């Protein structure tokens, strides 16, 4: 079944500023989907329309078969939203915050208490249940918004940059938890993120949005296969004065002179690189990927999109 279907969605502000220029998007049930785009691309507007926070100008949106225009209650019943900005009552104990949202979704007080306890425990917030929202740390606030979005156990969870400003440890534990609810509970997850590593690690499908238009849409694996090159950082036993010339690989010496940065074009084997380095007497101690491949692909696509606009 289709979880989300967006057709020719347009959003304008003041009749002439286009936030969305007729986007089409389909997300399958159970998918882990990411919407990538630079700031101001239209990601949050698209999510805002789906979750009824933004009125659309034209086009259609349906969630699990419920049309946004004719069955908004049906659409909302299927959705949980974790917005980009903190939007809970900072002067209320967090247990109440979660229970209130359960109540807004028609869950009785007794059941709401049970569910709030489960999700607050699951997100390591139960000990803080009587703390006011504003007293929590940034990471805790993010986790509170996830607990709040899950308390009515929606079929689809939408997260707008959920790990922004969260430390690495908490980010990883949030990744694990999101993967778990996607794989074990079958919850469809739609994520927007600035951390492209996050999209590559978590998501199966991706749409890249720029200037209010979808410029690429498909499986993460397929898009990655289109990436033109990958960059590696080699840690050398002996520092080099100048970068070796080994076409077709582009090489650069990094600030730390015993580190060599190498671009490996698509279709070329990294073994060839090592053969050449060995022949030149350069010994590699260790190696790591510099940027993730999706980032490189993303930047190339957005660059092309900007050129097209100009």
């Amino acid at each position, binding site marked *: 079944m289709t979880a989300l279907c967006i057709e020719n969605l347009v959003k304008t502000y003041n009749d002439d500023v286009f936030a969305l220029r007729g986007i089409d998007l389909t997300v399958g049930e159970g998918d882990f989907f990411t919407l990538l785009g630079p700031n101001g691309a239209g990601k949050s507007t698209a999510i805002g329309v789906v979750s009824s926070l933004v009125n659309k100008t034209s086009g259609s949106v349906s969630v699990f078969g419920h049309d946004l225009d004719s069955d908004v209650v049906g659409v909302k019943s299927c959705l949980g939203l974790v917005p980009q900005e903190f939007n809970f009552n900072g002067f209320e104990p967090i247990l109440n915050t979660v229970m209130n949202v359960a109540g807004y979704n*028609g869950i009785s007080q007794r059941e709401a208490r049970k569910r709030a306890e489960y999700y607050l425990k699951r997100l390591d917030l139960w000990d803080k249940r009587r703390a006011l929202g504003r007293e929590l740390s940034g990471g805790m606030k993010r986790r509170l918004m996830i607990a709040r979005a899950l308390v009515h156990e929606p079929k689809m969870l939408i997260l707008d940059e959920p790990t922004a400003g969260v430390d690495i440890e908490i980010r990883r534990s949030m990744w694990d938890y999101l993967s778990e609810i996607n794989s074990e509970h079958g919850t469809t997850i739609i994520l927007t993120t600035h951390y492209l590593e996050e999209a590559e690690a978590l998501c199966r499908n991706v749409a890249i949005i720029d200037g209010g238009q979808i410029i690429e849409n498909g499986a993460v694996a397929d898009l990655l296969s289109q990436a033109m090159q990958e960059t590696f950082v080699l840690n050398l036993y002996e520092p080099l004065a100048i970068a070796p010339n080994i076409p077709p690989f582009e090489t650069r010496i990094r600030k730390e002179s015993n580190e060599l940065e190498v671009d490996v074009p698509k279709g070329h084997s990294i073994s060839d690189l090592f053969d050449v380095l060995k022949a030149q007497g350069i010994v590699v101690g260790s190696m790591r990927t510099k940027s993730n491949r999706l980032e490189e692909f993303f930047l190339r696509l957005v660059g092309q999109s900007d050129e097209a606009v100009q």
Partner: protein
Amino acid sequence: MSGWSEAMSYWQLQWTAYLTIVRKEIRRFTRIWVQTLTPPAMNAVLYMLIFGGLIGSRIREVDGFAYMDFLVPGIIMMGIITNSYGNVVSSFFGTKLQKHIEELLVSPVSNATILAGYVTGGVARGITVGLVVSFVALFFTDLNPVYPLVTLCIAVLTSIMFSLGGLINAVYAKTFDECSIVPNFVLTPLTYLGGIFYSINMLPPLAQKLSLFNPVLYMINGFRYGILGVSDIPLWHSFAVILVFIAILGTIAMTLLNRGIGIKA
């Protein structure tokens, strides 16, 4: 699922959501009772002490009642009006400002349920303040409503009307200043000139006629009729004015929520 059970589950959902909003609102004003419940009691004591006791003792009877007895229904009503309005305007504006209105907007709660929930919260505070002020008034006079049902109906309907007004104000307000303009420059003059302290029969003919354009006059007189059995205007006029205003303000409030004005992009 049959249409009937779908409809039932829809109404059950709305009912649960309504109770949740009402509980949240009551928790809010009772948690900060020092700010919400004690100032009206303090004001009432001062009004009754100064106007009812010190000055009122030198005033002859009004409509056949001692001035203190005449004054008390107006003081109670003033508390109901200002607190019903103030509760909804501050709560709904705070909800907008902190953006947790989005919790409601993304949930399957209908706009009618949101409106009913906030208005009930305003009525809960208005009536609670009314009871607190009534209790305080017992130290100054006897309170034995002649028509208890009329008293209750006028109090609740007036509270509904001003709660609706508070919600409309909160929808349009962008700053705290804009939340206080209407209470300070519209509500307070209308209330003070609405017959709390005097009978309009004491005014010159022109002022009497002008007073009839003040809607608060009808509420205070309706409430006074419930408690004392006297009023400057017929009771049905009071009910008619309040119900017409509820219909108008309710329609405006629903239209604003349905269009998402002030709360949606």
